[in-house]
């Protein structure tokens, strides 16, 4: 195992995922397999290869500094589970 149970719990915490006790082992194994594949890739000599910043060979895609109307507040808030005073209402943060 290259990933410990503790690391798995940490990653789950960062992703705000709660994993049931009986599934912890399955996830640990799956993540472990992924990490092993990455270890395998590491065997390649990449000393002379530039890190890939993007998979497409496209650079400098930009737009002019122009303003257009947004979608309006009603539409913006349309999908929100809870709204108050024209704002998104979210649960206690800290």
């Amino acid at each position, binding site marked *: 195992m290259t990933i410990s149970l503790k690391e798995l719990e940490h990653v789950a915490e960062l992703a705000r995922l709660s994993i049931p006790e009986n599934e912890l082992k399955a996830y640990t194994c799956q993540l472990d397999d992924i990490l092993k594949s990455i270890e395998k890739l590491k065997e390649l000599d990449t000393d002379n290869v530039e890190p890939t*910043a*993007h998979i497409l060979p496209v650079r400098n895609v*930009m737009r002019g500094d122009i303003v257009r109307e947004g979608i309006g507040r009603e539409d*913006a808030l349309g999908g929100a589970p809870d709204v*108050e005073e024209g704002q*998104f*209402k979210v649960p206690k943060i800290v």
Partner: protein
Amino acid sequence: MTEYEAVIGLEVHAELKTNSKIFCFCTTEFGGKPNTHVCPICLGLPGTLPVLNEKVVDLAIKAGLALNCEIAEFSKFDRKNYYYPDLPKNFQISQYDLPIAREGYLNIDVDGRQKRIGITRLHMEEDAGKLVHSGDSITGADYSLVDYNRTGVPLIEIVSEPDMSSPEEARAYLDQLKAILEYTDVSDCKMQEGSLRCDANVSVRPKGSQKLGTKTEVKNMNSFRALQRALEYEIERQIEVLEEGGQVVQETRSWNEARGITETMRSKEDAHDYRYLPEPDLVPLVIDVEWVERIRQTIPELPLERKKRFVEEYGLPEYDAGVVTSSKKLADFFEACVEKFGNPKEVSNWIMGELMRLLNANNMELNDSPVTPGGLIRILELVKEGTISGKIAKQVFEEMFNTGETPDAIIKKKNLIQISDSGELEGIIASVMENNPKSVEDYRSGKKQALKFLVGQVMKETKGKANPQLVNDILLKKLSE
């Protein structure tokens, strides 16, 4: 007792002066009704794609050059992941390992000494939304309300080296940085509107030691004064901890303006793990020499150069030159006046005195006031030709500041023309002498300060309109009769 020195580095966020947001067409205008400047892109709705605003790159390059940075030939954006509802995507598009600019510096003047402060890096990112918490504070809140208008407004973050060793130096750095960003038209730098924000990394160590102490990060300083007070407090606090044999805990602390203290926000244990990854929705930037040179051409004379020139060209004292060049608008105002009227020291006295006093008292920027260089020049001319006294001139200036009327109109309306007619003044002086026989007697028996009182009485009688030199002359003549 051990002597300590502080080690301070600043992280400054400045909103860029663009019309539209960094990755979408929404306006960046401040102060709209909540959630009215939003679209599917800045709301982070699935299926949308960000497209970079070219002006953002131009301004970031400009700021980088003005801060003597190396501009990256190759730069990219990254996702910074964190769960906090001020960003709807659960990540902020920022730059991690390939920022647009790095390794620069700026110079500050502190106590007549120049010091170079290194700049580690400058990168582009999107701003977050605004949260309003129910109840008194974030910890006591039952829920929070989110306004995404500010989400996606372009920012640059400028990270300094830990080169500052006192709150005064930190303040001078922020002053200078603000002036440079204003001069170059990169940012409005309005701290009260949040378009310039500052966090500090602070540690202390025994003086002379090369080893850095444990640092804390101080946030939530919303003014220059707050920055200085917060740093003074935090340095004092850390020294006390060490003196009592304790250890400084690495943590983020928040400045509480009302109580004048810094408080623990979060400690290292629950520090964020941002899991940066290259932003797959944006392609990288390649910045060639032509692009950099085109931007370099647009950089104006910067504040410290201008200060130096004002000392050399206009003979202003260092202090005056520093104050007048602290903002580009003030410096432009000064030069416009001097070009027409000459007398640089007199002009700078008016700017540093009356103009800045009124701007500060009304919490205004020069742009918000109706005073023009032409208005001030006219007042100076009216004083010079003896139409109004220096004292009345201040009154006219204030009226002009408040109403925007011309000096001539104000003088006419309020009947403020200086009395320089000796016949008229002689009459007034005679009656003042008659009504104050004791002062006249005092003067004649050698108490020379009685003259001042009598001049004051004449000025009072004429509501300040009498020509003071003339009053002085006539009084002296009459008293010696």
